[in-house]
């Protein structure tokens, strides 16, 4: 039996490297991406990571599919905005840096009240309750202008109180580092939570709530406490949202916002702890950047989400982890050839398909003004039949190439998996 030559780095060192790397990336990122828009995007990624991780605390760790998570981020944001306004007014000794905590407490308080109602049930009834509660809260916000500021929402100013060590949080870079600090702290806390008795019991409730009852714990209480903790971190994310935009509107608690948390957390991957981090980064890339380049971003997002649910229910993080496992077992060289064929075919197919989609959108929206537009550097003319035919042909050829490459890759992939499985009967723990 060939001995496993996988370098088995003891867990403690591997953790230290991972967390050190995470901190390093958070610190260096704004120095690498200098532009204003990049800084805005990075700040949003910071608090979206917290929100998506808090969402996965429910979905991935607890098996609780929530359709109303925006209620807790949104109301947390409103609490933070009001706290900031009051901090400015009567000089309540609340430093700006602690405002997200007020958001967190707000989120936790709302979760404590609404959670009592939601966590009585699991699976589909739970999802339906969260949807009902979300719809109620969203529809009620415009009715209380005092609390939610009506259509204009609650605006606030983060430059308030005397600066602490010269930090006023006015410029975006200072706010970014506040968000980065919170992001690191909350990610670490949520990771540690999964290693606490309640965290592990939450996984048990996810797998088998009935058996949890027979080992002495009340599944509903486990879900309820986890729901309040998730509400706390969601509220912190909301508080940072309020600081970042200095404005919180009714849409912050809306159904579309909840759906986006679900979508991106699922795309990132719910099985592995770091999955939602990938999802959060993706959500900002799509929301801030992609929607500037194409009007069809919603179509791409819908299609991508369907493909992921169909072919990679574990999300991008599961794909990444699977490849890392293959690499760790030293068999990656076997996949290089089919993998490169796949990587070569994909852009051809994508170029064809996206050109067709973009031309359809352009024909509908901008055609009367100018029929031409630039797509990946190529000038396409919507009124010219040849471009349509060209794009269609590219999509067809690309599609065929892609399908062949995909089949080849899958065949090799399965062989490698079988070999690896033969080496280690009973694979080790997933997360």
């Amino acid at each position, binding site marked *: 039996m060939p001995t496993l030559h996988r370098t088995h780095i003891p867990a403690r060192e591997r953790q230290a490297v991972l967390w050190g790397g995470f901190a390093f990336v958070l610190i260096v990122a704004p120095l690498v991406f200098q532009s204003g828009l990049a800084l805005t995007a990075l700040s949003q990624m910071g608090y979206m990571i917290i929100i998506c991780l808090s969402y996965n605390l429910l979905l991935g760790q607890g098996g609780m599919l929530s359709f109303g998570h925006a209620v807790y981020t949104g109301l947390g944001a409103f609490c933070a905005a009001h706290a900031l306004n009051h901090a400015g007014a009567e000089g309540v000794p609340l430093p700006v840096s602690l405002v997200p905590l007020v958001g967190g407490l707000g989120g936790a308080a709302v979760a404590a009240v609404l959670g009592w109602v939601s966590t009585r049930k699991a699976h589909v009834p739970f999802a339906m309750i969260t949807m009902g509660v979300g719809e109620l809260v969203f529809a009620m916000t415009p009715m209380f202008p005092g609390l939610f500021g009506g259509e204009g929402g609650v605006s606030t100013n983060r430059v308030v109180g005397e600066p602490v060590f010269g930090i006023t949080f006015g410029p975006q870079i200072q706010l970014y580092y506040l968000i980065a600090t919170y992001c690191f702290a909350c990610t670490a806390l949520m990771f540690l939570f999964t290693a606490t008795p309640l965290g592990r019991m939450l996984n048990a409730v996810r797998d088998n709530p009935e*058996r949890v009852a027979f080992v002495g714990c009340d599944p509903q*209480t486990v879900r309820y406490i986890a729901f309040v903790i998730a509400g706390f971190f969601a509220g912190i994310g909301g508080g940072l949202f309020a600081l970042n935009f200095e404005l919180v509107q009714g849409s912050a608690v809306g159904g579309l916002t909840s759906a986006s948390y679900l979508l991106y957390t699922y795309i990132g991957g719910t099985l592995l702890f770091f999955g939602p981090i990938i999802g959060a980064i993706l959500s900002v890339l799509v929301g801030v950047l992609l929607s500037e380049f194409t009007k069809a971003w919603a179509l791409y997002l819908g299609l991508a989400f369907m493909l992921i649910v169909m072919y990679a229910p574990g999300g991008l993080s599961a794909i990444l982890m699977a490849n890392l496992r293959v690499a760790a077992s030293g068999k990656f060289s076997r996949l290089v050839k089919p993998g490169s064929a796949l990587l070569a075919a994909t852009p051809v197919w994508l170029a064809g398909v996206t050109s067709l989609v973009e031309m359809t959108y352009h024909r509908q929206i901008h055609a009367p003004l100018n029929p031409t537009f630039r797509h990946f550097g190529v000038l396409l003319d919507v009124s010219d039949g040849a471009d349509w035919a060209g794009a269609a042909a590219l999509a067809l050829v690309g599609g065929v190439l892609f399908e062949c490459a995909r089949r080849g890759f899958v065949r090799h992939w399965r062989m490698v998996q079988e070999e690896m499985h033969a080496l280690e009967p*009973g694979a080790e723990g997933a997360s």
Partner: protein
Amino acid sequence: MSRSAFALELDDVRKRFGKTQVITGAAMQVNPGERVALIGPNGAGKSTLFDLISGRAGLSSGTIRLHGERIDGLRPFEICRRGLARSFQVSNLFASLSVFDNLRCAVMWSLGHKYVFWKLLSRLKDVNGRAEEVMDRIRLTGKRDVLAMHLTYGEQRALELGLTLAGGASVILLDEPTAGMGSAETLGFIELIRNITVGKTLLVVEHDMGVVFGLADRVAVLAQGQVIAFDTPEAIRADQRVQEAYLGAVPAEQATATAY
């Protein structure tokens, strides 16, 4: 909690699903530390009775007492906390957790850690120690980090037993622990049950008469929803009514019982 003479008492327990009467007035008293085997033809209501005692199903009428305290109507985790643990006919494990984690979850409540989220599980010496100990006794230490769903059938049955006993309950209910096992494996497993439940009150549902007569101090026979006989194994073997209920199934198993 008044310490009555009996560990477990069933008094005129009835259960009906809609119009069909499943348990029609079962009564039984089990002494502390006693090993009782619950036998009866298929469909006699053995598993239903277990569900009633463990709170998985609600009673239609009658009372159940654990160490003298009424537990009918309580929810499963309330009953478990009072010292009664049960296993399941079909392995009911935490599928995506490792063997060690399964056992750690089972011991957490009994060691008083309830819903703690401000301490790290890895630092709880008592939880890890107890889980290691149970894992050794059910001989699954080699599969410590294997996910429950990747275990073989026999290993899953062993883990099922481990989860039931890890909580340190005084009254143990085992629902066909050796179901689906080969005869060689069964012998080893019965030995395991015997020495792991020393000093505890045991109620076992079992079809294999060899196991029943080898393990049990007393045997309760359930038929048509009632306990028609509750006596020592020898008395039960000779009991006329039991033979009718089983239509002569007893003699065929005679040989294996004497093998012990």
